Every structure is written in C-alpha cells, then in structure tokens.
C-alpha cells in the first residue's frame, strides 16, 4: 500500500475521530473541545498539504494516479456471474490531491473562524462535531475510487448538511430548511443511484476503473439510449447537490444554518461535490448527456444571477451567486471545458468562502442583522473585512488579475468553442447566457459592496417590529438582542475570524494559479488537470475496425491510463498552446478533440467579451447605486412584473409547494383513506362476514367500511338471519323441513332420471 494512500486514509479518518470525540465528550472537555476540532483539522490539512506537495509539485505528472482497494462485501461465487465482490477503495490523482488540500484548508479555516463566530452557543461542542463528520464525508467523496462509496459519502454529506442547516433547530424556518435540503438532495440521489445501477447491472462492478475499461471496450449490453440515460441520471446527483435547476431551491434556504457552515458546505465544498462528481464520471457522458448538462448549467447560471440582483438578504445574494457560479462550472463540464470547470471550482471555493466568512463577520458585527437595506458605511468600522470582501468580490465578478477571471474566462472560451463545433444555432445560447450572467454578477456584487460598505449606516431606518422571530430563535445570542443597533455596536472582528479572511483573499489572486493573469492555461492547474478521453464517443461502435486499422484506440483493461498517458505526455511537454493541437490529435474521439481545440482558439475572444460585460455590469452598478442616476426603487416600480419575478425567485418555491408537496400529501391522504376503508373493507371480507354473523361488539361497530363491504355485510347478515330463523323451535316445522329435504332431493333425482 502506497505511503500516500496511507496518509490519505489518515486524513480521511482524522475528522471522523474529531466527530466521535466531540459528539460524546464535548460537555466534559474544556471550551467544549473546539481546540480538538481545530487541532485535528490542522493536522489533517498538514498531511494533505504534504500529499499535495508530493503529488503536484514533486511528481509533476498529469497522468499521476495511485489507487488501493479492499473487499468490503463478498457475495461469494454467484451463479451466472462468478466470484463477486463489492470493493471499497481510495484513489489519488492530481484532482484528488488538489481537492484534498482545498477541502481540508477551507475546513480548517472555518473551524478557526467558528471558534469566534459560534462562541457562546449552547451546542458549541456539537457544532464542531458536525463540522468534523462533514469534513469526513466530503473527503470521502474526494477519495472514493468507486461509485458505491461515492454514493455513500454523498448521502453522508447530505446528512451533515442536514444537521448543520438545522443547527438552530428551535427555529421553525431552520427545521423546514433542513428538511427541504435533505429531500431535494434525495430526489437528486435517486437519479444518481439509478445511474449507478444502470452501469452496475452491465458490469457487476462499481469501480470507475473497471466500468470505464468495459465501456471503452464497448461491452455495454444495453442501447446507447441507456448510456445517455445513465449519464443524465448520474448528473441528477449533481443537480441535487450542486443546486442546479430545477433542484436549486434548497440552497438559498440552507442559509438558515450558521454562516461559517454556509461558507464551508454551501459555498466552497459540498455544493462543489456535484461538479467534482460529474468530472469523475465525465468520460461516460455521451454527447447528448453533455448537451443536457451544458444547458442546465447555462440556465441555472442565468436564472440565479437574475434572482440575485434583487435579493436584500446579504447571505441570499451570495447564495444565489453561488448557484449561478455552480451553473458556470456545470456549463463548463457540459461544453467539455473540463479543466476550466474544475479550475473554477477551486478558485470559486476560495473566494466564495471568503465572501461568506466576510458576510459572517459583518452579520456578527451587526448583531445578526442580515438585511443589506439596513447596513451601509461599514467600510470605516471593518477595514479588514472590507478589503478582503472587496477582493473576493472582484474575483467573483471576474475582473482581471483575479483567479475568478482566469477560470470563468476559460469556461466561457470553452463554451464558445463548443458552440462553434456543435454548429452554432441554439448552442450559441450557452455562451450568450454565460456572458450575460457575467454582467449580472458584476452588477449585483457591485450593488452589494455599495449597500454594505459605502454610504451612511441605515440601521436606524429599519422598522422596529421586524424580524424579531429571527432573534429569539438564536437562543445562543440572546444577550445581544436587547442591545439596540447602533454604530458603536459595530466593530472589527477578532483575529481568529480575520485570519481566515486574509488567507482566503490571498488565494483569490491570479499568481497563485498562473504566472499570466490573462491565461489560466499557462498555470500549473490546467496542466495537471487535463480533459480525460471519453469512453463513449461515436467511435465506440466502430472500435472494431479502428483496432483493425491499427489506430491506437484505447484497449482493455487499462484503457483510460493509456489514453491519458500518450494523450497528455506530449501536451505536458509542449507547454503553452501545445495542449490544444497535440491534444486534438490525441483524443480518440474526434468531437472531444475539436471542442478542446476550438476552446483554446476562442480564448481571447472570450477574454474580450467577458471583460466588457464585467465592466458593463460594474458601471451599471455605479450608475444605479453610487451616482444614483437611476433610482433603483423607481426602476423596480417601473418594471414591476420583472422585479417581482426576480424578487420571488421565479416563484419556484410556490410552484413546487403547489405541485409536488401538496400533490404527494394529497395522494398520501387519498391512499390512507383507501387503506382504512376500501382495502381494509375488502380484505376483511372474511372478517366482515364473521363480524356480521357475530354478536356485535363495540369494536366492530365503530369500524366503518365502505359501501361495497357494507353490501357484503348486508347480504351475509340477511342470509345468516334466514338460516337462523329456520330453527323456529316448532317441532313440526322441523318435520316439514325433514320431508322437504327428502322429497326435494327425490324430485331433483327424478328430474335427472327423466332427462
């Protein structure tokens, strides 16, 4: 077993340890044992940093991959299949290494930050325990080498997010939000599970390696439609987790959780897991599946952006921006800009975490005021927060010199290339939506910055009897509530909350990733994370003659590695643009090759357009909020319907409430009525019969059965009565009966004898 593997397993288990310790003993420990959480995460980060170092920096090899697995369930010698095991395992490649470092780092920072933010909460210890189990599950997703374990940890992050969203469970809204989040995710998981099942049912294995190998060998028994379905279904998992349309509704509500949690789970890591998962299964996605993914992403990005511009809750704005950014990533994967999407995943993780923690600092300072309308002028009071927040904002908006610029631009470039290759038309919608959302992003972030940090404090404008419920629920912070909001209440946060902000802000600058602020492609990241060759391209069917023709098509069983190897090796050598052309030749699947090529070609166009859009957006923000040339209120009234449409989040919640929730409750009630009356009635045929013959006892009387059964009861009842009445008690009747019986049969027999 490779030493890195061992280390990674240690990293995986450390947070679990922290969870176990804290959940059981937090009340017995000093400071509720938060230091344990922080300490353990610190060491976890240290180890993963080492892994990162040795994988990315030392062995600078795009094809780097080590894996290890063990038999978890042994089904013995299954008839018709042969020996069958379900294995669990760990895989480390560049992506894993990067994610590992990223997750542990952010988690560590959030732990640290929380020591300040959550101080004094009555479930302080439990909070860190939950963070621990979340980190554990997240790392699990990152490290898994097979679909089954990824599904397991998938559910587990769902659980931890459930627990953390509902951390203030006394608050009804929190309780609702956590339920909503879990169920929405479950819906996604169903799809994912079915997708997994489709693949398993063909190959009787869950491992990525073997599934891809088998697929590359064209051993997929079912039609290609099934394969596309598998891709889309697996993508549903991402739709749930990464809050893509139509399952995006849970993420904004998830902001009911503590803000650091929002930063960790609902901005940086868990929601990105969906994207990560799609990246993992990228190679099985058929073109059709990819189209679906691309459009979903584009739509999500656009929709969320439009919603974000009108939200007033500082966290909700960020939440929708998160949705929108996730949309970008998904879009990126959909258009085949694989590395760009993942690049954006990482950069976004850092700056969005920074933004959330910043907003957390603001909320903390404002005594849990979350409505931007009552903020303003915080610039002076919280310089650190202001600086870091702004930097992160720029990154999010995608201004040059920031990390966000590079990644987003790469995605958009890919989108353009994709549209070109797919032959334009409807497909240009994707880049267009992308660019438009970029503008919107710039606009609403500018708005936020302005509302929060500039101008004068508007705390006093706040109507008094608003949002009190919000306060009561925070049992932990009751001491604040009676304090009236005034500026001298607002002050910069303490170091343990400031440090994370600074670190994250620094990670949002370009040089961390690439020497050239205009091209992420030159950076180490894009080198390390190369688009893997698809195993389901058109060429799958003619793989036969391809092999005959001696074309170096991937061959079993180490198909993926070979492709990767002799695909990327030259690419890596050829620095700069090399990736594109050489890559073009090396991808077995022509479509994929073209797209990547076109993507690189469209690089600069993308830069120009996006910069313009961003500038447009920011200037618009200035026009509206700084120079007040356009009065937002007036505009809002002027475009009332549009405004409301956006303010009410396109009415998705209402729609779902009206259809799915109401619908299923209706069905449930109908069915249970059906059960209590009809089924019970019908199946009780015997019992009913018995009952109606029997002495009536109250239990039976109370039991209502529906008309049909009543009818049975009635008939049976009457017949029973009749039979009973035969016993008149008059002996002569008996004699008559006797004779009737005898002669009756005799006559019957006579007739039978005659005919």
């Amino acid at each position, binding site marked *: 077993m490779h030493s890195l593997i061992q280390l990674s397993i240690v990293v995986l288990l450390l947070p679990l340890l922290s969870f176990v310790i804290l959940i059981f003993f937090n009340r017995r420990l000093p400071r509720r044992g938060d230091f344990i959480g922080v300490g353990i995460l610190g060491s976890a980060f240290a180890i993963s940093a080492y892994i990162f170092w040795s994988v990315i920096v030392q062995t600078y090899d795009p094809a780097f991959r080590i894996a290890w697995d063990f038999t978890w*369930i*042994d*089904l*013995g*010698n*299954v*008839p*018709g*299949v042969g020996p*069958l095991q379900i294995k669990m395992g760990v895989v480390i490649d560049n992506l894993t290494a990067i994610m590992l470092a990223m997750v542990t780092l952010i988690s560590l920072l959030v732990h640290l930050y929380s020591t300040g933010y959550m101080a004094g909460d009555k479930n302080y210890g439990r909070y860190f325990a939950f963070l621990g189990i979340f980190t554990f599950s997240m790392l699990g997703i990152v490290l898994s080498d097979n679909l*089954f374990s990824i*599904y*397991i*940890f998938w*559910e*587990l992050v769902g*659980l931890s997010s459930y627990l953390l969203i*509902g951390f203030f*469970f*006394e*608050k*009804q809204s*929190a*309780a*609702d939000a956590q*339920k909503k989040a*879990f*169920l929405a995710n*479950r*819906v996604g*998981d*169903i799809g994912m*599970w*079915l997708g997994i*099942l*489709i693949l*398993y*049912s063909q190959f*009787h294995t869950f491992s990525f390696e073997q599934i891809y190998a088998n697929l590359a060998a064209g051993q997929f028994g079912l039609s290609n439609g099934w394969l596309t379905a598998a891709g889309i279904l697996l993508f549903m998992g991402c739709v749930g987790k990464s809050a893509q349309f139509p399952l995006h509704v849970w993420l904004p509500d998830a902001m009911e959780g503590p803000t650091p949690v929002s930063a960790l789970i609902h901005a940086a890591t868990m929601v990105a897991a969906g994207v990560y998962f799609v990246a993992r299964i990228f190679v099985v996605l058929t073109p059709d599946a990819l189209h679906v993914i691309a459009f979903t992403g584009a739509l999500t990005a656009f929709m969320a952006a439009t919603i974000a511009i009108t939200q007033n809750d500082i966290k909700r704005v960020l939440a929708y921006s998160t949705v929108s950014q996730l949309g970008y990533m998904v879009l990126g994967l959909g258009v085949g800009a694989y590395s760009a999407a993942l690049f954006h995943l990482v950069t976004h993780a850092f700056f969005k975490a920074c933004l959330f923690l910043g907003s957390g600092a603001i909320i903390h300072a404002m005594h849990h005021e979350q409505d931007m309308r009552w903020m303003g002028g915080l610039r002076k009071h919280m310089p650190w927060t202001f600086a870091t927040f702004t930097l992160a904002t720029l990154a999010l908006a995608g201004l040059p010199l920031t990390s966000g610029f590079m990644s987003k631009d790469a995605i958009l470039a890919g989108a353009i290339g994709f549209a070109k290759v797919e032959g334009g038309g409807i497909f240009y919608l994707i880049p267009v939506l992308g660019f438009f959302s970029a503008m919107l992003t710039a606009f609403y972030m500018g708005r936020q910055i302005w509302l929060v940090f500039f101008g004068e404090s508007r705390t006093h404008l706040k109507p008094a009897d608003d949002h009190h419920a919000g306060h009561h629920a925070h049992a932990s912070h009751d001491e604040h509530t009676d304090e009236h909001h005034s500026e001298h209440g607002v002050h910069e946060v303490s170091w343990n909350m400031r440090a994370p902000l600074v670190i994250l802000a620094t990670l949002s600058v370009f040089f961390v990733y690439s020497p050239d602020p205009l091209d992420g492609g030159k950076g180490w990241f894009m080198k390390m994370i190369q688009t893997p060759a698809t195993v389901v391209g058109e060429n799958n069917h003619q793989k036969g003659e391809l092999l005959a023709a001696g074309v170096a098509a991937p061959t079993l069983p180490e198909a993926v590695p070979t492709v990767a190897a002799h695909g990327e090796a030259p690419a890596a050598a050829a620095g700069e643009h090399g990736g594109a052309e050489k890559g073009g030749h090396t991808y077995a699947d022509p479509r994929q090759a073209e797209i990547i090529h076109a993507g690189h070609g469209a690089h600069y166009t993308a830069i120009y357009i996006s910069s313009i859009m961003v500038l447009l957006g920011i200037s618009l923000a200035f026009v509206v909020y700084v120079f007040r040339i356009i009065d937002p209120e007036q505009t809002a009234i002027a475009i009332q319907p549009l405004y409301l449409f956006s303010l009410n989040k396109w009415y998705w919640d209402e729609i779902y409430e009206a259809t799915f929730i109401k619908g*299923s*409750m209706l*069905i*449930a*009630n109908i*069915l*249970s009525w059906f*059960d209590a009356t009809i*089924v*019970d009635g*019908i*199946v*009780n045929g*015997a*019992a009913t019969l*018995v009952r109606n013959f029997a002495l009536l*006892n109250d*239990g*039976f009387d*109370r*039991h209502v059965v529906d008309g049909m059964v009543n009818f049975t009861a009635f008939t049976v009842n009457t017949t029973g009565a009749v039979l009973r009445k035969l016993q008149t008690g008059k002996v002569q009747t008996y004699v008559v009966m006797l004779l009737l019986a005898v002669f009756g049969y005799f006559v019957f027999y006579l007739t039978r004898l005659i005919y």
Partner: protein
Amino acid sequence: MLSLIVFLPIIAGLVILAVPSSQKQIIRIVSLLAALAQGVLAVLIWRGYNPSLPGITGSFQYVEKVPWISLQLGGFGSLNIEYFLGVDGISITMVILTALISAIGVLSSWTIQKQVKGYFILYNLLASAMMGCFVALDFFLFYVFWEVMLLPMYFLIGIWGGPNREYAAIKFFLYTLFGSVFMLLVMIGLYFSVLDPATGNHTFSLVAMATQTNYIKGAILGPDNVFWRYVAFIVLFIGFAIKVPMFPFHTWLPDAHVEAPTPISVILAGVLLKLGTYGMIRINFPLFPEVFHASMYVIGIFGAINIIYGAFCALAQKDLKKMVAYSSISHMGYVLLGLAAGNSEGMVGALYQMFNHGTITAMLFLLVGVIYDRAHTRQIEKFGGLASYMPVYAALVTVAWFASLGLPGLSGFISEALVFVGAFSSETTRPIAMVSVLGIVFGAAYLLWSLQRMFLGQRRSDAAYDLVVGDDGHEHIHFHDWKGKLDLDGRELAMLVPLVVITIFLGIYPMPVLGMLTTSINKLVEVLSPVVMSHL
C-alpha cells in the same frame, strides 16, 4: 443444541407456572435469564457455524433428526413425521435475530404490570414457537410451530393491548389463520407428492421437497401437474404474504401494532413479519421454482406497491405508532422486491433487509413506547421541540429514523442498496426497481417530517406536556403523571444501545451477517435458476 434454544423459553414458562403470581420480579427475572441464555446459545451456534456449507437442499448444520411419528396410512405407505431441526445460512441469521429481539422484548416487558405471570408464560411460548419456525426442517413441525405462535399472540394483543384490542386481536388471528390453513392442504399435497430418496417413503422433510427430482410424476403436486402446482404456490404465497404483510393483505398490521403493547409490537415487527418472507424463501420458492420464475414479475410489482403505498400511508398518519407500522410495510416491500429479483444480490439484500428491519423497527417501536409511556399519547401533533428537553432520546430517535430511511453507515442502507442492485440487475424486475426507487424519497419524507414535528421547533400550545422552569433556571418539560426519569433511563438505554450499536456496526461492516448468508443464497439462486428446472 437447537432443541435447547427452541425449548428454553418453554421451560422457563413452566418454571414461571410454578412461581406464585405475586412474585412478579422473580417471574420477570426468570424470563430474562431464559432469554439471555437463548442469546448465549445463539452466539455459540453462530460461532460454530461453518459458512461454507450451502444448506437449502442438504448439508444443514446442527442437524437433529429423530423419527417422531411413523404410522400406516392405508395404501399410502407410512406417514413419516420427523423431529428434524437444522440451520443453514438463511435460518441462522433469523435465529440470531430472534434471540436478540426476544431478549430485548423481555426487557421492554418490564413495565407490564397486569397479570405478569400469564403474560410471561405466553411470551415464552411465543418465543419458543418463533425460534422453532426458523429451525424446523420438517414441514409438519414447521406448521405446528407456525400455528402455535398464533394463540399466544392473540392473547398478548387481546389482554395487554390498547382500547380497541379485541378487534385487533381477532383480526390478527383470523387473518393469519386464514393464511395458514391453506398451507395445511398444500402440506398434505406435498406429502403425497414427494418421496424421500433415502427411505423411499413419503416425507414431510423440506430438504427432500427442495429437490425437484424427489417429486412423483402424476402425484397431485408432481412436476407434471402444472395447474395444482400453480395453485399450491399461490396459496402458500398468500399464506406467507399475509404474515409479511403484503398489500392488500396488510390491513391487520396497523391495527395489531397500534393496539399491541410495546414489547409485542417489537416482537411482531422484529420477528413475526420475517416469518412470512422466511417461509417464502424456505418453502414457497425452492419447492415450486418454476412457478416462482413465472411469478417473479408479479411479486416484484407487489413489492413495489408495498414500498410506495406503505410510504404514502405512513406520510398521512397522525399516530406515530401507526406511521411506524406502515413504514414496516414499506420496508418489507424491499424484501419482496429483492426476492423477486431472483439473483444473489437481490436475495442477499432481502435477507439482510429482513435482519436489519428486525433490529431497526424494534428500535423504532421501543422509542415510540418510550414517549408513549411518558405522554400516554402517540399523536404527533401533541409534541414539538422535544429535542431541547430530551437530548439523548432525540439523538437515539434521530439515529433510528435515519437508519430506517436508509442512511449510509447504518445497516438499513446496505440491504436496501443490495436489493436495488439485485432488482435492477435482473431483466425482469428492472422497470419495477426504477419505480420503487421513489420509496427512498418518500421514506425520507415521512420520517423527517415526523422528526421535525415532534422534536424540532418549539413546544406546541396543545402539547402533551408543560414547560416548567427548573430550579437551575433552565426550562424543562414535565409529563403529567410520569414519575420516572424525563430522558431515557437505564433500562431503556439497555434495550436501545445494543440495537444502535448493531445497526451502526453492521452498517459499516456487514460481512458478519452477509458472510453467513452468501453461500446459502447462491445455492438457493442456483436451485431456483431455470437451468436446474429444465431437467425435471
């Protein structure tokens, strides 16, 4: 060994018979000791079990086979009934489960105050009968145990049950009897159709019956008598399906559960329901493999109906216990689905689901019992915000609830996953599996919803308890006429913690149970496979 584990409780019952009914504590302790001894025996059996032997059609372990009754029947040779016990991978898991659940049941019976003596006598009789069913390999013997279960159950529900207990008890009795009397006919039919290759006599031995070559051509259930074989299969299936309970034969279950006292609900859900599916696996399918093959699709459909229908009904329930009852219906649906798949993954999943459902549902009912003891109501609307005041209870409920909705890391998940894997891998049940996956969501829906209504948020105005400010200044809640500890007390923890531990452990490392199953299941799948049947 097996005889001992089967008859221990009855012995205990006889001992109790001698104890004067005033000595409640002694009576309880005697039964507890018996149950614990049973548990120890179960562990010993488990340790000594060799998982590499398949069973099903032979090579059973701990076999005890003594001629019981042999009498001359007219021209039909001698009626040979054997006292034939033995375990294979399928039964041993159930044996362990039974031992575990009945021990926990005894603990939970501690609160029974009315007619303690009679209660425990019946309880022990029930325990023996259940155990007997799982180890009997002679159809006659199995049938005897099967029927002996009914009467104690009838009284346990009827005497110690809730307000509407008479109805529930007689309904349970009639339903299950209705199911089993037909089994009697099939049993006789099989007797006339099967020859024991060893002795050449007609036999009741299930082992002999499981081999299709032992059937007499032209006999009423002989291989060529297709019609009656189908009838027999269907009749048997209905008999077992009633126990499962399978839609539409399930309506006795909610009533029985709602009326039954907590320990009996635990036994009922934990073990009795398993008898239905166990019967299918042990008797129904291997004896009529070709019919099974013809009806896989239908069984799967019923499984799916159970899953979704049960979930929906649970979603609509106001009474917590009723909700849990419907959740059992839903979960037993997974078992049916897994069996319908007819492949190893599915069957293993089904068996494992039986085991897990046993432990998890036991947990659920115990937890319901806990709150019922305190509040004397089970109406979900009567609670709210309990989590703040009963943290330990809330924590355990959360674990149990999540185990029930199949959260990874808890045993329920693995079994459900395997069931789906199997059901999806088999061409026949694939579409059904795709539908029944919905059960995952609705399962989560009703469980989380009830969790939220009862434990999260604030106390409701009409709650079954009042808020009082304790001397330490914090708020506490107080149940009317409840003297005991507010949160779980020692006894309740003693019942629940083992189950929680098992659930988590088996969720992380299932092999201890699966390891015993796989060989037998693979053998079973082989027996059921059409290849084998072709050369009848």
